[in-house]
């Protein structure tokens, strides 16, 4: 019980419920199941991306190139679809995942083999990937009229009352959860984040593990590239510009420690959902859109301060009576 009360995830969930509750007080329509599902659906892409970013952050790295990766893979699949509408969409999705993973692998290789700090590598590929979007497209947009109906409609279909896009998020979250908690590879992400030197002693290849985290983040970015483009039905150079920091913000709000080793799937999902609720609730309750940015900034700061409090080491507690009281 005590441990449950201390868990970040619980408090985040409480926070989300509180926001939803407050908004509902003024706008009863807000918490109708339909609207809540819509919010979930709207946040699906951010949730998946946050999971990918979490894997990277766990290993004491950071991936600033996810949004650019998304834009690039999105443009690739959009152009393929425009040029060859006959290519089946599942194949296209598989292609997007592979392309994204390849871009992630490029980051990962530089981190693994050359030992360049991840922030530097991905700062570089952030601009390179986005530049390539321009190069391959010649700057031209791919718009709705050029995309095939299947390409656009796939994620809009529904299954058991939920849009397919939401199902994508649920499946990805499930897979990442299994990976993180039930496989040696997932545990390795945590281990090298908590103590990289010790990880070496347990037979974990630190470089390779980081590489795999980048590949995972890349694969998710690729998948989201397709989902993003088919959702907003436009592929352009500017797709998801600046979104990399939103993804990191979602992780941070979700209690993923930027110092590595700490973070849960539930936390990352809730962090993304929190941003989704805030962004969705504000226009609904008639808050001027100009307030939106300051409010999400404040939310990030509050989350950081609260997480910082709980992360602060409580010392070693040598005194017997202090130990009893703790």
């Amino acid at each position, binding site marked *: 019980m005590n441990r449950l009360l201390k868990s970040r995830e619980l408090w985040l969930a409480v926070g989300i419920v509180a926001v939803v509750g407050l908004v509902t007080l003024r706008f009863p329509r807000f918490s109708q199941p339909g609207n809540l599902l819509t919010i979930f659906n709207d946040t699906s892409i951010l949730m998946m991306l946050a999971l990918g970013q979490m894997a990277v952050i766990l290993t004491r790295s950071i991936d600033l190139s996810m949004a650019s990766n998304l834009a690039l893979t999105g443009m690739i699949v959009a152009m393929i679809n425009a040029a060859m509408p006959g290519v089946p969409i599942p194949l296209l999705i598989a292609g997007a995942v592979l392309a994204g993973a390849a871009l992630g692998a490029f980051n990962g290789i530089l981190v693994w083999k050359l030992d360049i700090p991840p922030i530097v*590598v991905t700062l570089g590929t952030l601009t390179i990937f986005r530049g390539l979007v321009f190069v391959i497209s010649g700057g031209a947009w791919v718009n709705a009229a050029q995309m095939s109906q299947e390409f656009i409609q796939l994620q809009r279909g529904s299954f058991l009352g939920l849009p397919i896009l939401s199902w994508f998020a649920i499946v990805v979250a499930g897979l990442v959860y299994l990976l993180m908690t039930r496989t040696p590879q997932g545990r390795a992400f945590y281990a090298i984040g908590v103590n990289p030197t010790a990880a070496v002693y347990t037979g974990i290849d630190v470089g390779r593990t980081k590489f795999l985290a980048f590949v995972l983040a890349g694969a998710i970015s690729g998948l989201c590239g397709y989902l993003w483009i088919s959702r907003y039905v436009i592929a352009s150079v500017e797709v998801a*510009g600046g979104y990399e920091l939103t993804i990191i913000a979602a992780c941070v709000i979700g209690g993923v420690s930027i110092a590595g080793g700490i973070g849960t799937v539930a936390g990352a999902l809730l962090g993304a959902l929190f941003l989704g609720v805030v962004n969705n609730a504000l226009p609904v309750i008639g808050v001027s859109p100009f307030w939106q940015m300051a409010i999400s900034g*404040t939310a990030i700061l509050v989350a950081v301060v609260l997480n910082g409090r709980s992360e602060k080491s409580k010392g070693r507690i040598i005194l017997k009576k202090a130990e009893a009281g703790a």
Partner: protein
Amino acid sequence: MTDTTATGRQLPDRLDNPVKSAVLSWESLLVLVALAIFIANSFASPYFLNEWSLSDMTFNFTEKALIALAMALVIITGEIDLSVASIIALASTMMGLALQYGADTPTLVAVGVGVGILCGAFNGALITGLKLPSIVVTIGTMSLFRGIAYIVLGDQSFRGYPASFSWFGQGYVFWVISFELVLFLLAAVIFYVVLHHTNFGRRVFAIGNNATAARFSGVRVDRIKFILFCLTGLMSGLAAVLLTARLGSTRPSIAQGFELEVVTMVVLGGVSILGGSGSILGVVLAALIMGLVTFGLGLLNIPGIVMSIFIGALLIVVIALPILFRMWRQRRA
């Protein structure tokens, strides 16, 4: 002080020749890169070698470079400030607001710089006071500061700055030498002296190498970090003055995306993102290189986004080269 007869063993000051290490330094690599780009530009475009062209080029980077000077110090201590562009937006907005109340030019500058320092102090207080990681704090304040600018300005924009104010962003001190360039060079000299020739700079490096040991050695780590965030705020405030004056107007969306360009400049300048090493000369050269690349390709009407591929690749290649070289030497040994 120099009574060393006790042991008889004399430790030399240093073994390797300082000239030799200067030649093999990061900065000389950057000088080579800059020269190569300069020469390439001169061949690629007939318009490049023209005093006005070169002068115009400096406008592409001076504001960012000004912030990069302070950011270099922050990164050397192992921290980072991603809120700089938002500080510009907020400072610019507040200057606009002051203008609405009839402020004169000196007051405007004071408001811009003052708001910058306040924002930096806010970052610094959260980071050093509550011991929070700077990267997440400044991701938060990045939204907050610009958010406040949006709240104040909404869909409006402020304009009508007096000509004496516009001079900061558009005026020339002498011939083709703009005020922005002079200010930047002046600031670079000051930062160079502070970082490389004062106790303060020495402590900045010590913190970046090992903050715990530095604190155990009597360095006031938190105070120095706080000062550095204020300094970054101040430089952002100055950049806000210049940019606002150059644009002649204020919008909340001003300076979008500057933060990553500034960080790129600093890292390209050879400052270790992990903290502990770097030089002002490197940052100045990196600023120049980025200016040369964007302007040179601009003269060929290559879109900015393609230039960024070049910058990104340059960043990775320049960092990877020494590593590859070391690996190659080790393999041979």
